[in-house]
Structure formats: C-alpha cells, structure tokens
C-alpha cells in the first residue's frame, strides 16, 4: 500500500465516526496501545520539543525504506503519532519527502497543525521529513 492509499484508509476509518467523542476515543485507543518506540531511543536526543507534550521519534533505513518508531507522553498526541507512523513508515525516502499528508485535514485534525498548538505534531512531521531527506541524499550519493 502506498502512502496515499494508507491515508485514504484512515480517512475511511474516520468517516464512520458520528461525533468528536468517537474520533477522540479512537485516537486515545491508538495512544493507549503499547509504546511504539524501543525504550533505548526514549532519550533527550530523540526528543522533539513541543511546548506541551513530548514526542520521541527514531528512524532507520532498512532495505531502502525508512522505518519510524515514536512515542509521546500525552495519549492524544500519541494517537496522532501512531497515525503518522502508520502513514509514513516503511516507504522510500522520496515517497516520504513528497507526501502531502492531506488526511490530517480530511479527518478534522487540522487544528492540531496550527503553529500555536505546540503539541509536537508539526515538529514531528518536520523531523520525519527531514530524516527522510537525509536518507534520500545518502542514497543519491
């Protein structure tokens, strides 16, 4: 499944929710799932500083694809982190760099992308793309 297909899959999943509570309950359930990151990577070095919630993110290149793992100390943020990992992980650096991530708007979470939200999501997307860019350049060289 390519990135756009995964995005569409998430959009379809969110469409069945009637109200905000179901949507957030789903995010919370995603967030409550086991930590997504290997404990050894939960260090300050891997911390993406947001104002309110902490996000740790680790990436590595495996067989030409970028594998992301991440975690957050806030459950809703962690739910959003889980969605981001599901969409971007295990794709080539070029696919990741070019992804437009329109699903965030389609599932009604755009407000979490406003710069004032400072929940780490904006910084996380930026860092995920930056990591992919670095791998892309490594491959091209």
């Amino acid at each position, binding site marked *: 499944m390519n990135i756009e297909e995964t995005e569409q899959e998430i959009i379809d999943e969110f469409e069945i929710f009637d109200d905000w509570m179901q949507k*957030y309950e789903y995010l919370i359930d995603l967030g409550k799932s086991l930590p997504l990151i290997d404990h050894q990577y939960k260090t300050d070095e891997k911390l993406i500083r947001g104002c*309110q919630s902490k996000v740790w993110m680790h990436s590595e290149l495996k067989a030409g694809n970028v594998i992301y793992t991440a975690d957050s100390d806030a459950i809703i943020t962690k739910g959003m982190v889980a969605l981001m990992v599901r969409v971007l992980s295990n794709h080539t650096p070029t696919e990741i760099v070019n992804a437009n991530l329109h699903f965030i708007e389609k599932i009604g979470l755009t407000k979490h992308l406003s710069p004032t939200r400072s929940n780490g999501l904006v910084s996380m997307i930026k860092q995920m793309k930056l990591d992919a860019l670095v791998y892309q350049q490594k491959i091209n060289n």
Partner: protein
Amino acid sequence: MINTLHSITRSSIDIEKIRMDFPILSRKVNGKPLIYLDNGATAQKPTKVIDAINTFYTHQNANIHRGVHTLSQELTTAYENARITIQKHINAAFPHELIFTKGTTDSINLVAHSFGKKFISSGDEIIISAMEHHSNILPWQQLGEEKGALLKIIPINVEGELLMAEFEKLLTAKTKLVAVTHVSNTLGTINPVKEIIRLAHTKNIPVLIDGAQAVPHQNVDVRDLDADFYCFSAHKLFGPTGVGILYGKEKWLNLLPPYQTGGGAIKTVTFEKTEYADLPFKFEAGTPHIAGGLGLAAAIDYINEIGLTNIAAYEHELLIYATNALEKINGLKIIGTAKEKASVISFVVEGLHAFDIGTLLDQLGIAIRTGHHCTQPLMNYYNIQSTLRVSISFYNTKEEIDELIKGLSQAIKMLT
C-alpha cells in the same frame, strides 16, 4: 485552605447584564456555548472598549502631540485624559508617572534596561521570587549576564506562599532592586507586596511589582503600596492587546535614562546632542498605540462602573465554589493552596497529561490553559511538567463551573 472571610461579603453583581456586555460570550466553540476560563491569559472585551476603539478609528484618528489641527488637538486631549483615568485608578500622584508601554513585559524590560544601565554593576544583586513569570525573570537574568549581577530567589512553601523570613535574609547591602509579582499567574497566590516593599524600603531598596494578574481582580493603590514601579497590561484588564502601563515614582523615572529613543521623546536634537523631553514623553518615543490607550481607559471606566470590590467578592465566591468542586474529583490535585488567592486554580490529574484533558475540554467549548504557564522554574519546584489552569473572571458563572466539572469528569473517563 483558602481564606473564606471574603466570601462573607456577598457580591452584588448583575451577571446576566454583565454577560450581555461581552459580545464574545454568546458565540459557540465546537458547536457548544463558549465557556471561557482562560482569563489569566487574556480577558474578553466589553462593548464599551470595542466601541472606544471603533470610535477612535472612525471619528478621531490623527497623530497626537504634534499637530495644530483640530483632530490632533482633540485626540491629544483624549489620550492624555486616558492617562489621567489610569492615574486615578491606581492612585498615582501625577499623570506623568504613567508610561504607556506595549504591556507588562515591555514595562519590565524598560526598567531592566534603564535602571540597569544607571544603577547595576558587577556583584550587585536583584531579588525576584520562585513564582515569577518568565517575563519577570528573563530581563533580570539578561541584565545580570551583561553586568555581572546576581539573581537571588525568594523561596516558596509547598502551598505556594513566599517565605518572608528568607526574603528578609536576602536583603543586603548588595541588593539593588526587588522585582516580584503581585499575583502568581500559575498559583493564584496574592503576595504580601506591601510588606515586601516596606521591608525593602527599610534598606532603601526600590521595588518593582508585576501587577499583570492583580489589576483585573482587585483595587491597586500604588501610593498605599509605596511601590517604586508597578507594571500591568491592558489586555488582561479587559482592554486591547499591545498596550500596557509602567507606573514609576517621579523621582525614579527622572533618574532613569530613556529606553528607546526617537520622535516624540525629545526637546531639541542636533547631530551632536539631544535634550530629552520631560516625563512621560522621555519614555514614549514614536507614535504610541493610541487606540490601545483609549481602549484601556474605557476598560477602566467599565470595571469601575461595576466596582472592583464587587468583582473581587464575586470572583472569590466562584473561586471557593470551583475549588470545592474540583477537590471532589478523584486523583485531582490543586497546585497552589495559599491562604490569599485570586481566582486562579492550577491542578494536575494523577496519571493524565494536561494536554489531553485540555484538548477534550476544548471539544466541549471549554477554554482553559494547559502547560507550564511561562513559569518553568515553578514547575521544576513542584516537579511537574505542566498543569491545567482555570482562571475565573466576573463574567463567569457557577453554571459554567458545573459544566467544567462535568467536562473534566467526562475527559478523565475517556482517558483512563
């Protein structure tokens, strides 16, 4: 325990009429009626303030202090009358002791710059407290780094009250200034600033008070306090953003060099030398935020129509009501339990992140603040990352507090 004596004085507030004065309170957020409990961040604006700003741009606009034409002269009079309104409100001795600034942060920076330039040198000490907002830490920290001066911190107890005996010990021959907050934006603690000033003055040390969180909730009399400098923002006082006040005693303001220089702040300029204007214009270079000044005066007129004594009594009722209700929630812990508190309640919920709770409350139309509230050293003291903060104003109601409690219970249920 909060001092409940105040609540004996029943408030006389016509809440329905007051709520009509604030147009924003009738809007919906996420499909729900807005419940605005983030007044510590900024307060909402009454029609009277909005009208004053509107009138300025539609009927009065000109530049002030410069023109011979009618508009300029009328507006100069209106602006200087606004200064007098503010002077009377805080009982300053003269209008020229009021400097229009961009806000509290700007006022503190002004003093740090100008007082620092003239009076601070290597080895000197400046006293602040453990509960200061970053705005009353960073200017002094920066000054200290530039001049080799040291910051001394008044410690607090776990209730969030200043340890006054420790404060007295910090006052030495090296102390050049004391800068403390009147009311803590995070804890709500009302500090004994009159006593702080009295103690500092026994050693001839001037005191700056950050009054940003105090002026919306209580009468402030700078002469009764004997404050040397008192700073506040219009926007927390139901006025416009981008304008604030530095009150300074005439003798101090005359001693300080200008902060920013430019048009309006001068008597004569040659390329060799400038003679600066008298107070307050020495500190007001450039065209000021005229709409802001007029809006602030309108806000002060508005709150004086209701009366800060009534406001304080009503807010105290709501504080007690909300505190009692919050304490009943399992796992909820209030941070800041000083005897003297303004209507600000910070709390944490065991095992839950403030951001998650705040996000869910937002979905219910309930606006509260989550985070460190620009008081990271204070968060470190309590060994927490963040709190949820409910800050109550006189247009809030017990019904809104009930909705908050319901919303909190719902959010906690969803998150656990």
